[in-house]
């Protein structure tokens, strides 16, 4: 018996999503009205039906695939870093969260020399603060500082 991996899980998830979209589309949003024609659920419901059946087909085909999807722990580190920036933004604000991320990433993971770290931080400061913040006038969230100030 072949082990269930992400190649099998994705079609199952897709079929579930299609089922939800199809059911909500037909029963909640409406499919067709004799007077006013297609309803909001018309187009997505048809698409959901297509997706449901192709997902079943993909699930069956997935057992024929010989190569397994391989995940690297470092890849998960980037995902964790992305989640970390989002969480840290609510506490220290978006710009400081980005700077802390770059600093920690380069010093701890990459063991980059301070000279390189400072150059990269300056480049990022130019892009984030100079271009986006000052020139284009984007107001970045300041996290808890916003409430304190």
């Amino acid at each position, binding site marked *: 018996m072949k082990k269930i991996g992400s190649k099998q899980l994705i079609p199952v998830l897709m079929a579930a999503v*299609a089922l939800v979209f199809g059911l909500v589309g037909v029963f909640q949003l409406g499919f067709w009205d004799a007077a006013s024609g297609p309803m909001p659920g018309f187009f997505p419901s048809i698409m959901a039906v297509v997706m449901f059946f*192709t997902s079943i087909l993909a699930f069956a085909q997935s057992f024929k695939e010989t190569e397994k999807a391989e995940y690297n722990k470092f890849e998960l580190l980037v995902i964790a870093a992305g989640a970390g920036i989002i969480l840290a*933004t609510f506490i220290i604000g978006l710009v400081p969260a980005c700077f802390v991320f770059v600093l920690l990433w380069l010093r701890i993971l990459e063991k980059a020399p301070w000279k390189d770290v400072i150059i990269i931080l300056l480049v990022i400061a130019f892009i984030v603060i100079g271009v986006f913040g000052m020139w284009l006038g984007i107001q970045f969230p300041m996290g808890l500082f916003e409430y304190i100030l």
Partner: protein
Amino acid sequence: MENIQLLLQGFETALTFQNVGAALLGAILGLIVGAMPGIGSLAGVALLLPLTYKFNPTTAIIMLGALYYSNMYGGSFSAILLNIPGDSPAVVTAIDGYPMAKKKKRPGQALFTANMSSFIGGTIGICILTFTGPALANLGLKFGPSEMTALLLIAMTSISWLVGENPTKGVIITVVGILLASMGMDTLSGAPRYDFGNMHLLGGIPFTPFVIGAVGFSQVIKLINDRTKDNGASNSDMKLTIRGSLLTKHDFRRLLPPAIRSGFLGTFVGVLPGAGATTGSFLGYAVQKKMHSEEELGTGAIEGIASCEAANNAAAAGAFAPLLALGIPGSGTGAVLLGGLMMWGLNPGPLLFTNEPDFTWGLIASLFLSNILTLIIALAVIPFLLKILSVPVKYMIPIITVVCVVGSYSSSYSMYGVLIMFLSGLLGYFLSKNDYPTAPMLLSFVLAPLLETNMRKAFIISGGSLNIFFNRPITCVLMVVFFAVVATPIIKSMINKNKNKKTEGTN
């Protein structure tokens, strides 16, 4: 002839020292903003509009035209170098641009191709606008929902070329894009749709953070496996000069036919209300797929970059026809431009060309001028842009991550945008790990809302009858083209199968 005379008068207005300076400044700023992922032409023009307050009306409008135009050039830079499309038309540019820069190690030539094609497409667009602007605008008005549905169906066929080896996975991923695009407010009735009680989802999934995540952030996650490679050393053979980035004669011969073809096609698409540069670039690419390309599209082909870049710049020029002649903006960016023009006392409409010839022809002349200026600047900055590629991968990872976060925040002014970027990045990563191509999802995400709206409108008009797609002459022609595009590969493969069977039989 009268138009040429008026255009020359327009050049007289545009070619003063102050106006050329304003156009130059507009071109530089527009290029920078256009290259920033997450800003795009709409936000770019809106953000830079206040800069024009400092000038007199004519100079302000010339600067506005340059800003708008150069914005279109900038979108391809980050798409080619980082695989992060600066705006939605650049999604198609990334399909061939990034492989040409990375795998073929010809980033300078990829940028050169994009710039030259943009210039050719833009020039064709402005020329058509000069001679047939008002007439073209009237033709655009003949395109109702059924015609737009047929046109969008043709544009949707471009997706089929990107599905890869497994068509089942291609269909799934295309529908995922369509379903994600259907979340939020129903465009016709205004009713909430698939918001699941969430306030943010009521506004739908914003395109820019979605594309930054699905393409850019997922790319960063995969890039970590290359962090030990010294990018600087591996790219040392690249020529970081303009001369080293020049195209060969052979490259030019490959670039010209698709660029010219897409120039005409893009202008026409730009005229249509609601179609815009994105549909233009998809359609340009779809048509190119039907034509001869020296290399397969999607593998870093010059023809691929040329077809979409020329189409999107031509569409940008074409959008001026309904804007000036009828006062109808074809896109969000057009609406901002219209606001800018009205702010300066211009009232776009049928009488604009006769009542305000100085303004109108000055603006059209400035489009020619800014097209040339932007090309010069865009070519001059190629060596500096190429330096990005010599930065080691291990340093690029945190830089691109920050650009993704900041870019997605800037496009939505909300952490919701950042969250969407993050989640779509995860989705893109897991899908690509399991051999699902992400490009069809992005293309269907952009085109599906337009297709759905027009299809439903057509059904409402016809009372649910399919006849509307075959009764009207323009729709009928477009539907025939659509069926021909769909049927050709099927018939071809059947013929080939028959041939193979016959040859096997004779052997």
